[in-house]
């Protein structure tokens, strides 16, 4: 790797997420190959690359949906490899999905309340008998979920079924639901997909707001350069399952390998000038 591509996070002292030498092979096909990344606590980090570069596979390995073929994923010092997904979530990692995966036939409120299930604060016997802490905890849980929805401007739709929300609100609900698990690290998988530029701008504001309000670390997958360039502090670029570049948005914009990966060689040559010039 060239000198200029040295990972800038080498300077970070506090690595919340530290992935080393991560690989995933699907039936002979190497989807992710020797991937590494170090996300600092409180950072807003972008993971970009063309379609099929392996970004979502990395997310799936972090959240335990896929088991890595090799490598280690340290979250706050603990290796997550081999841990079931729900325990990873309980340790403080939440995510959204590229193709929205809401609980379609449940209400908006229930979607968020399910994310609170781990913190429900009453047991099975109390639930069935409706005695003990049930009523109080259920009220608290509901109110917290409602407050959360209010932050995202969804409180007026709390009894609507998730599948009946328009696209943009479904995306917002998914983020709200992820935040309700009270994570320290939030993984966003192409949050701007399917949004028009105006909606995308709102989303970018929202992501900043979330980070500041909830004191979170955010790792973001994006396919559109514009979004990542606008909000991320650090960026890692993937192509063919490998890291091809890292750096600040400015570094990345001018990196020839990145431009090549994105735009193709021939077109890339011409476009690099435009990008650099803008």
């Amino acid at each position, binding site marked *: 790797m060239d000198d200029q591509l040295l990972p800038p996070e080498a300077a970070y002292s506090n690595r919340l997420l530290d992935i080393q030498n991560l690989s995933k092979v699907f039936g002979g096909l190497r989807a992710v190959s020797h991937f590494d990344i170090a996300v600092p606590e409180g950072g807003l980090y972008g993971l970009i690359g063309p379609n099929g570069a392996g970004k979502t596979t990395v997310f799936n390995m972090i959240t335990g949906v896929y088991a890595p073929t090799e490598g280690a994923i340290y979250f706050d010092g603990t290796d997550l490899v081999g841990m079931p997904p*729900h325990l990873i979530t309980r340790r403080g990692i939440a995510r959204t999905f590229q193709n929205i995966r809401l609980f379609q036939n449940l209400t908006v409120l229930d979607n968020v309340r399910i994310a609170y299930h*781990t913190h*429900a604060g009453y047991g099975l016997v109390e639930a069935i008998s409706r005695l003990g802490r049930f009523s109080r905890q*259920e009220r608290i849980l*509901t109110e917290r979920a409602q407050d959360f929805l209010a932050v995202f*401007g969804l409180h007026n739709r709390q009894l609507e079924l998730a599948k009946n929300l328009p696209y943009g609100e479904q995306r917002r609900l998914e983020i709200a639901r992820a935040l309700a698990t009270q994570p320290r690290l939030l993984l966003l998988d192409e949050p701007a997909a399917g949004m028009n530029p*105006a909606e995308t701008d709102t989303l970018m*504001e929202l992501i900043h707001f979330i980070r500041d309000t909830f004191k979170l670390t955010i790792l973001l997958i994006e396919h559109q350069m514009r979004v990542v360039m606008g909000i991320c502090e650090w960026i890692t670029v993937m192509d063919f399952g490998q890291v091809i570049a890292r750096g600040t948005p400015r570094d990345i914009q001018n990196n020839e390998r990145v431009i090549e990966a994105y735009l193709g060689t021939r077109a890339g040559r011409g476009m690099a000038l435009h990008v650099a010039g803008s």
Partner: protein
Amino acid sequence: MRRKFSIPSWIPTVLVAAILYIGVAYARAQGKISPYWYQVAQLAAVMAISSLGLNLIYGFNGQFSLGHIGFYAVGAYGSALITKDYLTKWSGNPVGALSWIVAVQIGLLLAFFVIGRMRLGALRRKMRDALSEALKPGEIGIISAIVLLILAAAGLAIGAGASYGLHLLLVQGLGRLVAITPKPVMEQVILFLALLNGGTMAALLSYLVGLPLLRLGSDYFGIATLGFAVMMYTALQNSDMVIPTMKGARGMVGIPRWTSWPWAFGALVFSVIVMRNLVRSSHGRAMISVREDEIAAKTMGVDVNQLKTLAFTFGGFFAGLAGGLYAHLYGFLHPSTFNMVKGFDPLIIIVFGGLGSMTGTLVAAFLFTFIIEGLRVILPQGFEDWRFVIYPIFLLLIMLLRQQGLLGTSEWGWFRAPLPPAREIPVPDRTVVRQQPAAEKES
């Protein structure tokens, strides 16, 4: 979000239940309905309980089980053994069967607790780490499996010992209780204990069966549970090899016919309350989330395997309870009552009523039972054989005309998810979402 005052949702529900209960009881007392129809009403309640259990597993938790009838059978035979023992002392003691069954269940639970305490999974991982330098993975697998088996056997032995001791205590204690309690009271107590045991036996078994099988997912789980049901059927046909009084393929007779409308209806009310309260709690919501999207549920921190086991165990309990009531309704049990053809009944009921609808299941269970039994009466002489020709045609028509069942997932009255209490929701000063009506309309 303020709502006007309205009648609490439980009032109309309790009213309907009361009318149904009093109606049937009164009509029977007045001789308005024959004993046959009185029995059909009880059977309908039994079917409703069993179907509720399957709806919890399939409709709410999304696990496609074809083995429900197996748990129903366990409950039926398990409770019949107890009451029959009280009457005929086939085990040599009026409460011998009861104490054995209770003791074995507690012993099994203890064994599981002990084995769980051994943390075999962690142990296995440790062994794998320690041996991974020296051995191939396959070899480690075999060695660790042997070690784990030995430990598990030790746990089971502890459980077995405990249950034997417990059995001795229980026989003594229960025997004395029987001696001092007047007979009519004791009969009811024994029936209660028998029904409870039918339920817990089925629940324990479904826990044990579910533990390995629930990982399979979708159709494979369905097929494996179907396999369980067939195995149970075969086992019952040969049950006389182990317990002679079960009479195997000849059919178990001499079971007291103690089930009555109050018992059947009471058990139904109990099941409905448990089920509804479970479903309308955080646990219930988590169960439904497993049905909706397993992966999303996992990433919400929901322990999917635990909730699947939970739903399956509760479902098994309801099936066992229903089976116990069935056994004491007709006083005769035969393996063919629990064959595959009958096994589809609860599935048909819940699909007909609507997957994920308790109201639908209740309505469908009563309709289904009355239609099936009604056909027996309505069809003219010589056409009884047509019953099962007409019934599948009904089934086809319903599926073609209403694929989501009678009620879909909608509920009525008290079964509905309670609305969140009305309150002003504080909207934060800085709204995240900038008001942009144009964009809002577009999306």
